């Protein structure tokens, strides 16, 4: 089962729901080690994307949806997450091109392109206590699943599970990038909010794929 436009739209809707539901928790995490606006920014950004979904022209592809997410987040999210996620979705859109259906390999490629976009924009490396710490394990798990012959939904599920573990694993780290890096050692003991939101977004995509595949 490939992932199509229906899945892409569902991913965005589920992402918007996740950001709304976890808004307070993301604010709490960000307040510990950042400026406290991550939950508010992500919620606002995804509600704005959600409002634009109905305007997608007929015949739109998953890549078109990803591009819509990118441009909307860049314009509406005031913190670092806007350009970082915006670049991620933009590169993901470029990776899938005009394809109408994505198989496991295409999903792995989409995720890798998104991660590469975040890295090139934010210059963060694995272990810096950033969203990269969720994305890189996710990309590696997706690549492994895809090369083992998993279908698109299975690849996405593997990525989401690895991202969740990666987000938890940021807790003991000392931040070396972003606002949290100003705190130095005091940033240890708190989960990185960007890694957490990344895991939530990937889980939303995996859930959308699982429900679509089962329908």
């Amino acid at each position, binding site marked *: 089962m490939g992932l199509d436009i229906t899945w892409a739209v569902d991913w965005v809707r589920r992402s918007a729901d996740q950001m709304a539901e976890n808004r307070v928790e993301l604010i709490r995490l960000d307040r510990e080690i950042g400026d406290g606006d991550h939950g508010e920014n992500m919620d606002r950004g995804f509600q704005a994307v959600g409002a634009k979904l109905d305007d997608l022209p007929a015949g739109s592809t998953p890549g078109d949806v990803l591009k819509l997410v990118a441009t909307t987040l860049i*314009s509406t999210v005031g913190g670092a997450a806007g350009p970082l996620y915006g670049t991620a979705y933009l590169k993901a859109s470029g990776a899938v091109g005009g394809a109408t259906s994505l198989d496991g390999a295409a999903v792995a490629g989409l995720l890798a392109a998104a991660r590469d976009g975040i890295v090139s924009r934010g210059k963060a490396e694995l272990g810096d206590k950033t969203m990269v710490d969720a994305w890189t394990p996710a990309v590696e798990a997706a690549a492994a699943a895809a090369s083992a012959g998993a279908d698109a939904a299975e690849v996405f599920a593997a990525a989401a599970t690895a991202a969740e573990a990666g987000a938890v694993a940021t807790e003991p780290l000392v931040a070396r990038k972003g606002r949290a890096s100003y705190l130095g050692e005091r940033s240890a003991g708190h989960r990185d909010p960007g890694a957490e939101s990344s895991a939530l977004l990937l889980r939303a995509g995996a859930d959308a794929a699982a429900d679509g595949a089962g329908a």
Partner: protein
Amino acid sequence: MSGGTPGKVGLVFVSHSSQIAAGLVELARQMAPTAALEPAGGTDDGRIGTSFDLVSAAIAAADSGSGVVVLCDLGSAILTTETALDFLDDELRARVRLVDAPLVEGGVAASVAAEAGDALDAVVAAAESARGDRGEGGGGSAEPAAADADLPSSAGAGASGYSRTVTLVNADGLHARPAAELAKLAATFAHRVTVNGADAKSLLGIMSLGLTKGAEVEIATDDVAGSDEVDALAELAASGFGEH
């Protein structure tokens, strides 16, 4: 895409706070009355943050075709600006420079260079010249010139250095424009030269000395090889910077 001041490099100040960006325009405007200075502070709806759309619009508004220099405050302002640059058309992007420099000091130094009609590279260099300034020469309580008190208005040599003391003759003392001329000349020097203890290359360092007409100014270097440079600055100061 036409904006800015014809023939002059434009400047964009990106801050998380609209008040910081607007305040910096106000400050720099004193020394740069005609250059294009565009604030891009806060989010679209006036919250703390940075806005892709505001940054993009400010770059367009600052661009006269001579180039645009962008300065930012905190990290995500840089991310937003870099993203905005990615979306510019190639022709405009080729003449927009994101400079890593202290926002206030770099912004003021770049504004003075832009006002003077300097080319893009020179305005970038002016902004970058502010990088090492913080903590140096910023204090008005710089070391007193007591060591050279016995050398009034004349050349003198310290243990290993060289200094001259001159009296400011121009009406406004070392206010913005004369200070900028002095810093600009000092920026071409190979040696470290100080003005009453402040680094002569630091525009804000010199300005914060608050030297008015009639003030005694000690221009000094620790390296005798910099004697000609001290003389050049002393002559510029003694000439009244073209003011009377």
